[in-house]
């Protein structure tokens, strides 16, 4: 135990080395000066009544348009477009738990890759700490294995209400009568409820592309095998495997973890681009291990509507290194050394914009503030898919606005290894 305490003591010493940021006092002062006056309780009550009335209007709207209502701030991209067009299947069924939590399955949108469930959580008794709510969801049908939850996110509206979406692996073609199983741990016992619904296959998003890719590319020390692309008007989904060429896959990843922070692990990135230059917006994905292979999936919005050809490009492994440094700068700043790899070559004005020229191999993630707020970066996308170069190169980041005294913050640097190889996806 003494050694354990030594390790803890070591962490304490590390913490003591952390310096208080110079701007702390200014931050406190700004916060006090910008503090908003309190809103009278009567105004809150009036706003609440307004929301209440609106919510009732929305319900009737939902009945006519079949749009799943109340999720506008939770869904984006093609999912939002489809829902706006009323292409989801409205379910509107609820279940209640003994602790007063009520869950309503408002609707679903599905295709051959995934089923997205829209649900609301409401506490009818006490304030709800959503971070402690141990809710587990599973979708069941005829398939005895059920359909596992893949991903999800949501928004907590207040201490009693939240809206969420979650996606499951798509129900098999033979499924019709489904059950959403919901389990919450209450007093160390799992309480289970279910909501039954019938899949309306007419509502399923039709497949637009399904292609076996079966193509390998080599990126640095990794071999990436792209297996299959499936896409509908709801989503795109691509999967494959990663192998390490020299050495054991598991060992290489262990080594990576041993020498670096978790934040710094390499992860696979690539773009799917049409002949018109449009890219698929990836929204998620994950990696899993099996013996000597690592499997990956990436999922994103629907493919763009019009294209003749599709290509997988900019295949790369990216890793992040934390920099976390900030500097007082002006338009006269030249050759500012951030670390051994990164140099701010110069800062200059161009019209109403401020240009920051940074020399580095990897892509730096930077922010520039004018003393009050961060200035908008105008051309980050230009470098986003740009692979790391062998020698340092200069990137010019353009920010909207000008200020005499500015603060330049370096958050991370993205290092990547990439290949020039592209994969053509045949489209019928």
């Amino acid at each position, binding site marked *: 135990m003494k050694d354990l305490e030594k390790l803890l003591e070591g962490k304490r010493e590390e913490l003591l080395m952390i310096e208080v940021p110079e701007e702390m006092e200014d931050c406190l002062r700004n916060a006090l000066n910008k503090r908003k006056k309190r809103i009278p309780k009567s105004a809150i009550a009036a706003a609440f009544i307004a929301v209440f009335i609106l919510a009732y209007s929305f319900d009737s709207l939902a009945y006519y348009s079949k749009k799943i209502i109340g999720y506008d701030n939770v869904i984006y991209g093609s999912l939002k477009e489809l829902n706006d067009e009323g292409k989801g299947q409205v379910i509107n069924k609820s279940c209640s738990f003994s602790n007063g939590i009520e869950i309503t399955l408002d609707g679903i949108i599905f295709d051959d890759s995934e089923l997205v469930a829209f649900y609301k959580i409401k506490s009818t008794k006490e304030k709800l700490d959503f971070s402690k709510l141990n809710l587990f969801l599973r979708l069941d049908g005829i398939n005895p294995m059920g359909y596992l939850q893949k*991903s999800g996110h949501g928004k907590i509206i207040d201490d009693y209400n939240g809206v969420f979406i979650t996606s499951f692996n798509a129900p098999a073609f033979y499924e019709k009568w489904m059950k959403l199983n919901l389990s919450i741990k209450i007093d160390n016992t799992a309480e289970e409820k279910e909501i039954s619904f019938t899949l309306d296959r007419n509502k399923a998003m039709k497949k637009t592309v399904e292609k076996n890719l079966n193509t390998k590319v080599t990126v640095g020390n990794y071999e990436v095998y792209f297996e299959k692309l499936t896409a509908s008007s709801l989503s795109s989904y691509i999967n494959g495997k990663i192998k390490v060429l020299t050495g054991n896959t598991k060992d290489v990843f262990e080594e990576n973890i041993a020498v670096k922070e978790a934040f710094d*692990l390499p992860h696979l990135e690539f773009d799917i681009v049409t002949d018109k230059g449009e890219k698929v917006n990836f929204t998620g994905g994950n990696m899993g291990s099996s013996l000597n292979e690592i499997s990956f999936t990436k999922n994103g919005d629907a493919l763009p509507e019009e294209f003749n050809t599709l290509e997988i490009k900019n295949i790369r492994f990216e890793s992040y290194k934390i920099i976390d440094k900030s500097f007082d700068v002006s338009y006269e700043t030249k050759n500012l050394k951030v670390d051994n790899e990164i140099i701010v070559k110069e800062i200059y004005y161009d019209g109403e914009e401020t240009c920051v020229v940074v020399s580095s191999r990897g892509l730096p993630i930077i922010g520039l503030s004018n003393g009050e707020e961060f200035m908008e970066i105008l051309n980050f996308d230009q470098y986003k898919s740009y692979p790391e170069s062998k020698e340092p190169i200069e990137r010019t980041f353009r920010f909207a606005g000008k200020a005499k005294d500015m603060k330049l913050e370096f958050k991370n640097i993205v290092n990547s290894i990439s290949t020039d190889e592209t994969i053509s996806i045949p489209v019928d």
Partner: protein
Amino acid sequence: MEVIDLVEKAKKGDKEALIQLVMQKKEEYYRLAYVYTGNKEDSLDALQNMIVILFDNIKKLRDADAFYSWSKTILVNECKRILRERKKEIPIEEKEEGGYFENYQGREMRQDITIYMKRLNIHQQEAIKLRYFLDMDYATIAKMTGTSEGTVKSRIFNGLAKLKGLIGGEY
């Protein structure tokens, strides 16, 4: 200037007095926020939220001597709120990737205690961090986390025992 005088001034709406109170112990405040949030931006956000809450509520503070423990409790609550907010924003996909990598922990990582601390429950982590990283006594931790000294001791005891088990070997 004495704490009591500054508190009295702050109660009358003197913002600079309140800033001075906090800045007199800036290291303690910043490190407390950093222990919870783990980064500069969130720490400063929590501190900014804290000072606004302090300003709005300092009139209710009866005992000026209690200013520091009162304000630090508010800071801890703000840090927790920020962490909850951030948790809301993290898509589940990212968590899954983290989970995957956790399965591949190398032996060398045993030296990095913070990685193992993430396996403890949130209360145990909190108690151990406050006790060992910030050198707080049991009574202060109990006050700050709204629990009893006995509970704090048991969280630390159980947390350390679990850590020992996780690290294994000579630890």
